């Protein structure tokens, strides 16, 4: 029981008091609710949504992509309908062209851009399965933190900072749209905080009403079409025929086995970043040794001589140059026959 010191008469019967209490209590409940919402939606929640949202959200928009001193923008329409992803991308800069994808079928219409063969662009290996089925514990290699709210391309977003726990990889920042989890902006940052790669939607419309004709090829030109992984392979084991990696950064696991001529390539991913290792017999040209950087992408090349046969070893990925070099240095060719170079 409460005993009053002052014995004030105002303590009893006052109609305002109840009203005040009610208002106050309602306000308190609302505040409590908002508090609960922010607590449950932690960094892990958003990380879990990232992957599915990329595929299963329907939207159209324009995004810019900058790496190094290069900026390009692209128009995109993306639809998820009856379990099939349809996508049409149209570069907005330079020569015209487009990429249309329906499910696992990809059609590239890009104008002649000199020395690059388009059929080398589209892989024939089973990639999607290998990558998408992987449940990487991203938080083992990155420290996920919610870094506040923002607004991008007219949508409310939540900012997710993924700080690399070691110096073997870059830090990432992701901006995810709040209702769908769609990635609308991202930064790849070096250890000194410099933004190496920047992706961002400048206009965006998240909508279910995307008509079929938004996914029709309109550019005239040479078309290159490929089926991506029509069959599920029993094991997505990488083909490292004839060579091995003595070392790779923690957390990066083999993810795909693209086929490019005689080359032997394997991709590795830690769930956020990826790098590819290419090992192939050297042709007549001589490649320099060292790293080139384009934004967050490092290309480290070196030549390797085994049993009087020269090999190109190239590591390409969104990893720091030192990591790329260490990976390249750890490539061991143990079976030159696997490359079919006998007699060349």
């Amino acid at each position, binding site marked *: 029981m409460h005993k009053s010191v002052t014995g004030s008469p105002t303590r*009893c019967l006052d109609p305002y008091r*109840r009203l005040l209490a009610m208002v106050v209590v309602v306000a*308190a409940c609302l505040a409590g609710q908002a508090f609960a919402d922010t607590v449950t939606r932690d960094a892990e929640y958003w990380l879990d949504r990232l992957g599915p949202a990329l595929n299963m959200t329907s939207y159209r928009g324009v995004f810019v992509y900058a790496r190094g001193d290069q900026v390009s923008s692209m128009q995109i329409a993306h639809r998820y309908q009856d379990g099939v992803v349809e996508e049409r991308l149209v570069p907005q800069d330079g020569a015209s062209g487009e990429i249309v994808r329906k499910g696992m079928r990809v059609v590239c219409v890009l104008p002649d851009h000199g020395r690059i063969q388009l059929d080398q662009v589209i892989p024939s290996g089973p990639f999607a399965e290998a990558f998408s089925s992987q449940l990487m514990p991203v938080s083992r290699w990155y420290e996920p933190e919610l*870094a506040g709210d923002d607004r991008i391309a007219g949508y409310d977003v939540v900012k997710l900072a993924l700080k690399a726990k070691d110096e073997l990889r870059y830090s990432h920042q992701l901006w995810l749209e709040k209702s769908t989890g769609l990635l609308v902006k991202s930064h790849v940052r070096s250890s000194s905080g410099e933004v190496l790669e920047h992706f961002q939607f400048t206009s965006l419309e998240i909508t279910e009403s995307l008509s079929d004709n938004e996914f029709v090829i309109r550019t005239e030109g040479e078309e290159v079409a490929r089926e991506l992984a029509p069959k599920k392979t029993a094991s997505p084991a990488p083909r490292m025929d004839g060579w091995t990696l003595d070392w790779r950064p923690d957390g990066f696991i083999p993810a795909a086995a693209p086929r490019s001529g005689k080359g032997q390539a394997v991709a590795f991913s830690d769930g956020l970043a990826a790098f590819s290792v290419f090992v192939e017999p050297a042709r007549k040209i001589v490649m320099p040794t060292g790293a*080139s950087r384009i934004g967050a992408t490092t290309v480290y090349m070196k030549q390797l001589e085994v049993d009087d046969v020269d090999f190109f070893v190239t590591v390409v990925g969104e990893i720091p140059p030192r990591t790329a070099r260490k990976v390249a240095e750890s490539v061991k060719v143990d079976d030159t026959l696997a490359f079919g170079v006998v007699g060349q």
Partner: protein
Amino acid sequence: MDDRLKETLSAMMDDEADELSVRRLLSHARQDEVRSQWQRWQQVRDLMHQGNLAEDRVDVSAGVREALDGGVHKRSSPTVSGKVRRERNWHWPAVAMVTLALVVGFGAGAGWESADSNGEMANAGIPAEQSEALESETVGEPVQEVALQGLDDEQWEQVSRYLLEHAQHNSVGAGRGSVGYARLVSASGSGY
């Protein structure tokens, strides 16, 4: 914040403030001052009683629920309101406390949150000196740089094919969607 308000606040802590005083307190212009004073005293009290904030919040929610029930009563049966009010008289300071505690708690929470996120923004990248030092210790001498502009046609073709293949792994494979495509088209552009 004058002494009279502080007295009221103090009385509320002991569940002994009169209603007028509390209303005056709640309508005080500098609510942030009121909050911080309340918070300090709560902390002191918590320390002295060796209790913690979490326990307080449990009490708080119960109080809120009870008060809500009372509110419903009032609307549905105004005739008994007097009686209800009388019964709940003792409860009034508790409700006020609940409110203040929530406002304070929430305000403080929000404050910490924003402080945190500011810190995060600032530290989004790893502190430069620290990681650079680490890097040079563990990985050794700097990496030899190769300028892409310096490559001849054949060398560039080789490199660009690798870039494209890698970008393709990312876009279709890693489910990075448009980011991967962007890398792809960026790699196939004649920007170099």
